[in-house]
């Protein structure tokens, strides 16, 4: 037995009491603060569910064609979506897609500025990097419980948990992309008298865009990886079907819903990757990598 050097019970009690105090006194404020997130998620979900299935198919197949200019990916997307429809998973898939899209949009809004900030200051990077490590490695249940206590079960804690898990790769890749812009190009830009803003928007971000897009791809994949856990606290969607399948020992239900998640992952992964490749080609980095 490790000797008891200090008594940790007061510390634990303080944390628990602190959280309870926050829940008692501040949960309304927290909920109000998270309200825009909820609205975003709701709006996307309502839109996806209200849109007729054939229109969504047409749009996604169209995007797939734009991303590749090739018939292969559109066919894969079409077959994937037909699978969702045939297996009676359409509405759940739309709910899951809405959660993923809302999480990705929020992650983009938050992560890219943080990544930019990180790329410019060593101090910021030294502080942010361990926080990102923590966000990615801390078991999600650890922060799920307090968020559920504060917000109550439902879509908000599910969305927050998804964002916490899915945002870090985008921050990292934004930082990496901005820092690995060719120093010769940056110097040339400086020599022409650009200010930092002109360099950021005119040189760094355009050249880092393929890397940033890889980050967005990672974020969508991580968000989909969270859907089962998110459905435990009320996110609904495909994750909930998987959960029910497990609960009722209905292997088929779990299997099909699980495959539905895989199918969504394939669609979004391939589309974002193809856009990334297209962008690399346009910038002229394709040959280098």
């Amino acid at each position, binding site marked *: 037995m490790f000797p008891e050097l200090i008594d940790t019970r007061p510390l634990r009690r303080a944390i628990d009491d602190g959280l309870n105090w926050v829940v008692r006194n501040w949960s309304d404020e927290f909920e109000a603060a998270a309200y825009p997130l909820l609205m975003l998620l709701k709006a996307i979900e309502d839109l996806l569910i209200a849109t007729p299935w054939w229109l969504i198919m047409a749009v996604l197949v169209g995007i797939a064609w734009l991303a590749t200019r090739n018939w292969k990916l559109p066919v894969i997307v079409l077959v994937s979506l037909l699978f969702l429809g045939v297996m009676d998973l359409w509405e759940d898939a739309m709910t899951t897609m809405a959660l993923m899209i809302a999480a990705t949009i929020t992650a983009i809004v938050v992560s890219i500025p943080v990544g930019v900030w990180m790329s410019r200051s060593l101090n910021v990077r030294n502080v942010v990097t361990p926080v990102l490590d923590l966000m990615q490695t801390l078991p999600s249940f650890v922060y799920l419980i307090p968020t559920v206590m504060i917000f109550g079960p439902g879509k908000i804690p599910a969305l927050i948990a998804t964002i916490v898990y899915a945002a870090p790769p985008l921050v990292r890749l934004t930082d990496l992309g901005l820092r690995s812009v060719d120093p*010769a*190009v940056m*110097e*040339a*830009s*400086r*020599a*022409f*008298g*650009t*200010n930092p803003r*002109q360099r950021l928007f*005119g*040189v760094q971000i*355009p*050249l880092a865009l393929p890397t940033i897009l890889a980050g967005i791809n990672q974020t969508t994949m991580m968000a989909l990886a969270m859907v089962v856990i998110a459905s435990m606290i009320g996110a609904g969607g495909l994750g909930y079907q998987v959960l029910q399948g497990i609960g009722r020992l209905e292997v088929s239900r779990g299997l099909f819903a699980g495959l539905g998640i895989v199918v969504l992952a394939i669609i979004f992964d391939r589309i974002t990757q193809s856009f990334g490749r297209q962008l690399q080609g*346009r*910038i*002229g*980095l394709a*040959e280098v990598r």
Partner: protein
Amino acid sequence: MNAIDIDTDFAIAMRGVTKIFGDDPNTALALLQAGRSKSDVQAETGHVVGLDNVSLDVAKGQIFVVMGLSGSGKSTLIRHVNRLIEPTAGEIVVNGADVLKMSLDQLRTYRRTQVAMVFQKFGLLPHRSVIDNVAYGLEVRGVGKAERLREAAKWIEIVGLSGYEQSRPRQLSGGQQQRVGLARALALDTEIILMDEAFSALDPLIRSGMQDQLIELQKSLGKTILFITHDFDEALKIGHRIAVLKDGAVQQVGKPEDIVLRPANEHIEEFVRDVNKARAIHVRSIMDKGEFEACAQSVSRDARCEDVLPLFAEHQWVGVVDESGRQIGRVTAKQVIKALARYTPGM
């Protein structure tokens, strides 16, 4: 020393510019000023001396070449002129303005309007078309779109890249990319152009063509060009004046023939040994000055020995004429041979 001492007739004047790389440059600077050598300072403090007390004057409208081997500090030197690198000590005055006293804002304005730069690795923006690359400096300066595209198109034509306006830099060859870099600098219409080993990455033939074009452009536009190179032949070909840099210190400054005919030390002698002297020596520096009977064949006063050599196959004397066509002197094959052979070691 203060700025008033510096003659404002010079486009670029540097006084005692020293650059030391490291965390604590001032300690190393004190050692250096106490007369210690570059390698002593490096061994003792771990600081690298980039430039050691460099003073240069670049007159307006000339091509001034700084020549040195890699590690001699020449790229560091050129970056001081537009303050991409801050000196540890010294003064830099460009067109009468003290560059080191400029605020960040003034410095940006100065870079946008007074000095343009061409880079060894081109430094083109890969995500922009050729015309947008050429227009980049004007865009940064805040020139409207129609005007900057018009201006860019003009310079693209001058450097001979018409038809490539919408190409991406990566679709061009190295020589073409550097033409874009040159057009981008020229489009700014600054009095001063800094060229950092601009032609070093190019094939010899293309390099020679670019050198000719640069000489032509400089003649027609009258720009002041500070040109960095490691190639002595290139320096002799394009330079009105040449400074030789070694270990961050200036070894010799002078006209090309000064350096070829009177190398200041062994280091420069080594360069001179392999050089094509016929190209370096102007006939006017070896001719007999004065009035002579008109010669059947004559050359301009800017001609070099290599230009007159073939003429001696037919003629005994070759006349030298000034811009107006008046004969100002004459030269014989003997004089040329003397000049070429005089300093060849072992003779």
